């Protein structure tokens, strides 16, 4: 039950971050970009952090408790993908932090949107990392349901 709670917080937090990040694309002022990116930090990231740790720790315990083997494909692949998702998400966070910093600077100089801030928010590498992390979470869910190699 609490493993599933962790998974919902982890993956649901990722979805919330994705929705808020996508809305930042369409923000019309730097203050709006800053606000939406701050919501990712204050709501989505804590959910992702608590959920990812809970899902991993209780998942490893469940493998032992339910008599699965750690050498089974779906078990070790899920652990590897968990680490990949964390790595991709962490790297994408740096791009968002750069955009948030630029947005805060622009708020102080008239709160007018610039091409530079728009480019930072829509940075293809940063977004590929963020949404790649989401795809990785989807692969983990597929492994958890189908359990290939079991």
């Amino acid at each position: 039950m609490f493993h599933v709670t962790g998974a919902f917080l982890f993956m649901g937090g990722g979805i919330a971050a994705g929705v808020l990040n996508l809305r930042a694309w369409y923000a019309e002022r730097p203050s709006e970009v800053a606000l939406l990116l701050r919501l990712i930090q204050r709501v989505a990231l804590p959910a992702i952090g608590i959920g990812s740790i809970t899902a991993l720790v209780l998942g490893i315990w469940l493998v032992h408790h339910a008599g699965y083997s750690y050498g089974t494909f779906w078990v070790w692949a899920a652990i590897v993908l968990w680490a990949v998702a964390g790595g991709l998400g962490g790297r994408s966070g740096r791009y968002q932090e750069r955009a948030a910093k630029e947005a805060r600077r622009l708020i102080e100089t008239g709160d007018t949107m610039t091409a530079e801030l728009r480019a930072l928010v829509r940075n293809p590498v940063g977004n590929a990392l963020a949404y790649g992390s989401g795809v990785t979470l989807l692969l983990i869910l597929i492994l958890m349901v189908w359990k290939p190699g079991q």
Partner: protein
Amino acid sequence: MIAMLRPHSWDFPLFLHVFGAIVLFGSTLATASLALAGWRLPTVRALSRSSFWAVLGAAIPAWILMRVGAQWTYSKEKDSFFTGGDPTWVGIGFVIADLGALILLLTAGFAFWWQRSQRPVAGRIVAVLASLYVVLLAVAWLAMSGKWGGVVG
């Protein structure tokens, strides 16, 4: 227990149900956080506009996916596990799912009103409805994953 016993032909409907539920939770969480932020900043257009699109573009499609997956999974499981009637966890899931349709439609309506009028009361109603549904979704996943009331009916 059902997870250990279910045949692979049940996996796809279950995946649709769980995937839809996760997207529904995440998009409702995003809506609630946007509307709660709007409590102090009700005239920030990005908050009202984003709340409306989070409900309409993500939460409602996810609800449809979750509900279709739920019914499909239920149709496969009921003859094997629920011959004596639906267990408590299935009933809780159905009630929260179906009540959720009403809550989401009301949330979308008030979010549309908030976006159009920028009236604080509309944003506050969106915040209350979306937060309520986040809590109900948590109850649903706890009941369903913990198999409250026993695994079989």
